[in-house]
């Protein structure tokens, strides 16, 4: 049982919070701009390297430098939207999807050109885990990730329900045509979608890199589970995406727990496939997600 908590549950929650933060952006972009943003993972990578670059100059806890990564991703996302996605907005969404595929490649090659392809770590040495009650060993970083995600969830919820911009965003995500005729400022809504999505991507990327190391494929490798999380939570439902992220994280990690007998339920080699299978299953049987998102 203790083993379960220490090696499966806590790490799963930490991975889940990374997925959750990434999935919020994907879900909102999908809901409001109506396309699957394939460059979101690489946007995460870009933010991570922004933080990493600052960390090389300013020797403080990398978590304090996340705003620099956020600034980098927000500016990049807004520029990319302005110059690459916006001209395609009137066309079938497929064009934007393919375009975002190319943008993913552009982000990745820029990271490799500027920072090289070698793995980079934020800090050396092993940080001893927090030991609670002599039995639970939790990595400090995991605790930070889960708590930050919880705080962000509260703030995001406040933003979406109380502020005018947040409410407009929800309205557009629910019904773009209706929102258009009721005179909402669509341009502003789109801007804020990118700002929030990009900012959270930078946070998620930094946590992922802190957990292991930064490398150019960091975000791309996380993309599919994040899509799965966004669909699970229901497209256009940021809070649903958060929950979806945690569910996917838990499902991936817990799938290889020895629930029955002594063997892992699913060989860890197939761990990656769990998110995919969940995602495909959802797409077929419950495409609106668990929280009644919009159907495209």
């Amino acid at each position, binding site marked *: 049982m203790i083993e379960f908590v220490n090696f499966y549950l806590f790490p799963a929650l930490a991975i889940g919070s990374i997925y959750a933060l990434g999935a919020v952006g994907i879900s909102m972009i999908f809901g409001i701009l109506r396309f699957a943003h394939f460059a979101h993972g690489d946007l995460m990578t870009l933010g991570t390297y922004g933080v990493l670059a600052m960390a090389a100059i300013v020797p403080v806890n990398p978590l304090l430098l996340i705003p620099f990564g956020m600034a980098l991703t927000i500016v990049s996302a807004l520029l990319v939207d302005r110059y690459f996605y916006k001209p395609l907005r009137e066309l079938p969404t497929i064009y934007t999807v393919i375009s975002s595929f190319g943008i993913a490649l552009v982000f990745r090659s820029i990271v490799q050109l500027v920072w090289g392809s070698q793995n980079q770590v934020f800090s050396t040495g092993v940080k001893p885990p927090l030991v609670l009650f002599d039995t639970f060993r939790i990595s400090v970083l995991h605790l930070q990730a889960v708590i930050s995600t919880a705080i962000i969830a509260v703030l995001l919820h406040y933003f979406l329900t109380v502020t005018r911009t947040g409410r407009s965003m929800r309205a557009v995500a629910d019904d773009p045509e209706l929102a258009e005729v009721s005179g909402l400022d669509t341009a502003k809504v789109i801007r804020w979608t990118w700002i929030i999505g990009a900012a959270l991507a930078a946070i998620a990327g930094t946590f992922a890199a802190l957990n292991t190391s930064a490398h150019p494929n960091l975000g791309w490798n996380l993309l599919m589970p994040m899509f799965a999380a966004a669909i699970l939570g229901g497209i256009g439902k940021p809070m649903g995406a958060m929950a979806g992220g945690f569910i996917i994280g838990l499902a991936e990690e817990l799938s*290889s727990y020895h629930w029955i007998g002594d063997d892992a339920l699913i060989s860890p080699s197939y761990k990656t496939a769990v998110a995919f299978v969940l995602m495909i299953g959802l797409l077929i049987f419950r495409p609106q997600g668990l929280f009644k998102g919009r159907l495209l």
Partner: protein
Amino acid sequence: MKKLTTFMAAAALLGSGTAALADDTKIGILMDITGPIANFIPPLQNAADLAVKQVNEQGGLLGGSAVAVYGDTTGTAQGAVDAAQKLVNVENVPIIMGSLMSGTTIAAAEAAIIPAGVPQISPTATSPAMTFLEDNGLVFRIVPSDNYQGEILAKMVMDEGIKKVALTYVNNDYGVGIGETFIDAYTEAGGEIVAEAKHEEKKDSYRSELASLAKGDAEALVVIAYAGDSGGKIVRQAIEGGLFTKFVGTDGLRDELLIQNVGADALKTSFFSSPTSPAENPAQKALHDAFNAAYGEGADKAFVDQTYDATFLALLAIEKAGSTDRAKIAEALKEVAMAPGEKVGPGEWAKAIALIKEGKDIDYEGASGSAEFDENGDVGGYIGKFVVDGDGYKQVEIVE
């Protein structure tokens, strides 16, 4: 008009490269620059460049200069074949050093390099399949087959008095090759593998794998994976979780990055195996000194020795053959690499060309071993046992 100018500029650029001095001799270097092992490559490019630089500083190649031409396999079979075709046909190189991954090395050899009759020498392709290529004596490697390192590693672990281990290996040609041989050799020698897990690259968490590995009462965890990817993460997460304190690794894990990642203290009781040279051979030190003098750091990274040696051997073979005749070079490669002959070490190019001019036979003793090819172009070689020493690694024993 605009198109025409672009075309002219492109043509000029293409011309400028190929119209270089007539007495330049090219050497093709095939590496997996982008793709899954991109993070290994920068020091290896330095190693190859170092060999070429030393040649040019010490009298040049065939009376002219040596020029390294790179091809990027992109870590895929398609990219490997395409890059090799360009090296062989467009750049017209007489010999190819590379590539690193077995998958790209064999695809490039089969589809492009062997048909063109170009000799190829890989520094790190460890797949057993390399042994049985129908290569007309053209394909060589200076790293032992996985089978060999797996057996030695098993012996090393037994000699250390470790009777029960947990084993995890990365699911690619490198990890599976060594891992499976290790299992056979270790259990045959009386050891017990209490837990075993094959793992995927590029995951963030290996904690669930570790949890199942920790379930037996293993004395050490054998990790056959790269420090830059899953290997480093596994060691780190095992230490963080307090699951293992003693690790046994291979050359993929023996990387300064690992020490950077988890700190030297945590690796005090761990040891690593890696292809190396006989103890009295000063070659490795000579290379590392020259490397660090040229690039500041990085000589101790995985596969640097092998890459340098393969490049240097390729250059020696061209010089020995006396021309860019591909068949002659293939023969010459065996002569310069194998005994008998006057010993030549890394960086001793001037000595080598003097000997060749005198008509004497030479035998290159490299930093990674002495490269005695068998009839399949394979080497046996020496495997060293390394421990962490400060920020780097120290060789403590050699197993043949």
